[in-house]
């Protein structure tokens, strides 16, 4: 069963008079449960494609089906609700809230879910525990290493039990060893929870750990 179906998608950025075609007629289908690497050099269009798959951006032309829903027909609020229910993000810069502790950062992802504070805390701690970070629950992001921060970010992503986790260069700000540990953790979650992972990277060691590699070059998919 396909989770995402992208047909003839182009994305053009308009910069004053010049227009940049970041994606050119892309076709791609991602099945539920895949562990997929999006590989390509800097500026090739990885982020643009992830944004479109994550429903935070819309294609200039073409069609996107997410979980069999044509996203073009959805309003901003409907897209927000769709993300809240089904999609999580992991970022290159971790994007944790500096004023919140680790466990509060994870709880924040449950902000829109109707549950009691105690329940929220319990699930957040469980997610942190899975990342082996329960002992840092009360620490603020700036008191943690990059690898620890990214693991908090992954805990925040998985605590909502989404269908899809999108990770844009999740290892780019980490050293190789830590980066590989992070990818292994994602792999483990993918196995246990059947969560679909799509991550972009240009690190060969990371690419090697994927089930499937989609290579993108200058806005075009060169091998899927």
């Amino acid at each position, binding site marked *: 069963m396909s989770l995402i179906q992208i047909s003839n998608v182009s994305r053009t950025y308009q910069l004053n008079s010049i227009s940049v075609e970041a994606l050119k007629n892309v076709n791609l289908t991602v099945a539920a449960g895949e562990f997929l690497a999006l590989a390509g050099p800097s500026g090739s269009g990885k*982020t643009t494609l992830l*944004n479109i798959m*994550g429903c*935070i*951006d819309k294609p200039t032309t073409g069609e996107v089906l997410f979980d069999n829903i044509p996203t073009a027909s959805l309003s*901003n*609020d409907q897209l*927000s*609700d*769709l*993300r*809240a*229910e089904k*999609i*999580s*993000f992991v*970022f290159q*810069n971790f*994007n944790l*809230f*500096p*004023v*919140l502790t680790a466990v*509060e950062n994870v*709880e*924040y*992802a449950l*902000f*829109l879910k109707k549950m009691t*504070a105690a329940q929220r805390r319990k699930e957040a701690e469980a997610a942190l525990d899975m990342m082996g970070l329960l002992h840092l629950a009360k620490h603020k992001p700036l008191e943690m290493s990059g690898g620890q921060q990214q693991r908090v970010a992954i805990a925040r992503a998985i605590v909502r039990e989404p269908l899809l986790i999108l990770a844009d260069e999740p290892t780019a700000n980490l050293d190789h060893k830590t980066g590989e540990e992070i990818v292994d953790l994602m792999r483990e979650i993918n196995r246990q929870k059947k969560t679909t992972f799509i991550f972009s990277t240009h690190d060969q060691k990371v690419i090697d750990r994927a089930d499937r590699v989609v290579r993108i070059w200058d806005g075009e998919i060169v091998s899927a």
Partner: protein
Amino acid sequence: MMTLKIALRNIFRHKARSVITLSTIVFGCVALIFIGGYFQDIFWKMREGFIESLSGHIQIYRRGFNEHGRIEAYRYLIDNYQEIKELVSDFPEVEYVSARLQFQGLMSTGSNTISFIGQGIEPQNERQATIEETQDLRQFMKSKNLGLPVTVFGTSLVGDDDYQVVLGRGLAETMRAQVDHRVTLLTSTVHGATNALDLNVKGAFRTTQKDFDDISLRLPLQTAQSLLDTQAVQVLVVKLHQTEDTDKVFKSLQVIIRDKKLNLELRRWEDMADFYNKTAELFNMFYLVMRIVIGIVVVLGIFNTMNMSVMERISEIGTIMALGIRRRGVMKLFLFEGLLLGCIGGAIGVLMGIIIVSLVAAIGIVMPPPPGTTFSWLSTPVIVPSIVISTFFLSVFVGGVSALVPAYKASRLEITEALRYR
């Protein structure tokens, strides 16, 4: 709960900046509470002084006096005033009822002659303060003393001696009058005949109004009555224990006058206190302007802070939008922060305002005489509950208003742009 926690943490993210922003709000609140309390104190003192020195709370006249009395003063006198006095004195709210008879004439010391306005009064009701009493300004600023004429030399009218008079300070100076000098008052009786009387000067007084002191003298009511050849009085001045009871007593008196078909008319102090009413109006206007100006200054301060906060948190805003929080939700978060900032600043400001006003009131500020008057006075600002409450809510409101534009800006960010932002 979570919203509150996060908003609080974000507000205090930059300590120095929060302190400055909060200081602006606190300063604004303190200023408004202080100035409001200072004005209130002025109003109160003006009011009580006016009532004590001139008007009493309610004045009772013969019907028609206020319309025609200026020209034919003696046609509108109250004959049966003792009866009415007794009737009105029965009200528990009434402190006393005092009869007055006012007239004009010429005063002569043999060498000098000058025109005057005389007031026949009941000395037991219309007390004068001594100079010693005015030394303790705080005591003198209490309502029972405020506005009392002050004896500047000699004494006030004493005992039941009929042949005595006290002069306004200006009048006394012009006539070079001293204690125990004899002066002759010359006037026409209510029937139009000329009459004169020799009186003993007991002393001189001053009121808050210099103009009044330059032409006025006071003498016992019965002396004025015999000089004018009448048993009647012009006005009954009703003094209450509390100014707040004025309307209540006024209404009851109206009913009595109607039911008993008395040929009388009434005026309340505020019908006479033109100067007070105009000043109050002016001050209220001024206070409104202050509120607006301070409000704008504080709005700009909070706006600046919130704007900086949004600019710094662009990638965070992108992150929470990616998490699925709607645009409206982002707007709410920032609005909430603004309201909370106004709330915290307002709470501290109101508290500080109350403390500062209490301190200043305990010490008191000696103020120079207001224009046209002769006394220094002691300002003791008061805490006005309605001003305290409205200042707090103004602060919260201002917090919300200042956050509107930054919050809107935050909610309009493009998610992808916000996430790309460094």
